[in-house]
């Protein structure tokens, strides 16, 4: 029941994501938002390193768990949360017990002044886009959203290479069409909503169902419900490749700034690696 299974994108990618990502999150949002969270070290360190006065974008903020960070100096930076799921934003708007700034939008949208932000994070989001071109575009939007002279971007996506502690097993299929290419795996990852004991935390969907139908008895037995979310699990090197592709599209020089460069816009990969079943990359924009 709760096994990761291969996915086939059999529709227009935007319509496919609506069905296999956005609608799922809207349905599981009320449960998702109650999940406890401790930020991974690299994300916490990134946010703790930001100077006071910086404003940032959390693209695909979900339940807004990064919006209160850094906890040791609240309010010294402001992170604006963006998400496609309106129901998740209801949780994000009060993340950490204070009023947050959230915007309903798409990670492929560009509803900001160009370069308006000092930093952007995108944690566990880009892997929900169903084609390489859309994933690259999402990275382009992040690079465009931050300052050309000092903007910093941190991206996390799920990796094929899962932590030993993780229960997820990713099915791998040999890719005959492009041998040697760095390609991840398209999969469905199940989300099981278990019946809640005691006072019931029912989802809106179930509530609607019980309201519209006469109840057979007062002891309603609720079966666990399984939702399947689409993920593109990244292969090693694939995320860095995506950043390079996005930089090329935006005509940014890739690599550290050297003193010989003038009238140039560039982007440098500051660090990239694997942490707790995720691939991550941190980049910094520069202007000469």
């Amino acid at each position, binding site marked *: 029941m709760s096994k990761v299974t291969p996915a086939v994108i059999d529709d227009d990618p935007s319509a496919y994501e609506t069905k296999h990502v956005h609608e799922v999150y809207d349905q599981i949002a009320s449960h998702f938002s109650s999940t406890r969270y401790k930020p991974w070290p690299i994300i916490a360190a990134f946010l703790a390193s930001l100077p*006071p006065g910086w404003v940032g974008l959390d693209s695909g903020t979900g339940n807004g768990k990064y919006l209160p960070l850094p906890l040791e100096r609240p309010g010294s930076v402001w992170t604006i949360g963006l998400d496609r799921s309106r129901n998740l934003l209801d949780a994000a708007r009060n993340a950490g017990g204070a009023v947050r700034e959230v915007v309903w939008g798409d990670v492929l949208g560009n509803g900001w002044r160009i370069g308006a932000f000092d930093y952007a994070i995108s944690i566990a989001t880009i892997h929900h886009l169903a084609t390489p071109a859309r994933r690259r575009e999402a990275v382009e939007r992040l690079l465009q959203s931050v300052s050309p002279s000092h903007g910093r971007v941190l991206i996390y996506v799920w990796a094929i290479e899962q932590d030993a502690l993780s229960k997820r097993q990713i099915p791998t299929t040999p890719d005959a069409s492009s041998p040697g290419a760095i390609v991840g795996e398209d999969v469905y990852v199940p989300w099981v909503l278990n019946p809640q004991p005691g006072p019931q935390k029912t989802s809106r969907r179930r509530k609607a169902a019980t309201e519209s139908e006469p109840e057979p008895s007062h002891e309603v037995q609720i079966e666990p419900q399984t939702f399947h979310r689409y993920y593109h699990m990244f292969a090693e090197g694939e995320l860095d490749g995506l950043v390079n592709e996005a930089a090329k599209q935006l005509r940014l020089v890739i690599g550290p700034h050297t003193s010989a460069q003038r009238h140039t816009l560039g982007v440098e990969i500051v660090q990239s690696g694997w942490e707790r079943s995720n691939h991550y990359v941190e980049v910094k924009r520069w202007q000469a």
Partner: protein
Amino acid sequence: MVRLITHNLLACHVKGCTSNNFPLKLQDVQIALREAEFNEDFLRGFIPRLEWGALVQAAREVGDDSLPAEVPEMLDDEFLKQLHHVLLEIHIDEGSMVCPNCKHVYPISSGIPNMLLAEHEIG
């Protein structure tokens, strides 16, 4: 939530709408005032990043004309407190934001701005 801190960052992103697409004009707004923690370090760091004219205009659109037309040279306590109030304590709970160029309307509902576009409007 949408406060003027966020409004100062938003721009229209309808396909082809790339100039005069900021600031979005606030219309038919319902305002709530909610106290927020004052953070002087944030404000001092953030001032150079603001589009000041846009902030002054947006503040007027929501009924606050306390800000000077230009950022003062001396950032005294009184000014910082006023800026804090305008940026972080005025909540736009309902209303809409209209693009000055293409007139696209972005609705605000229950404090959340809707920046989604239809597929054919995306650039």
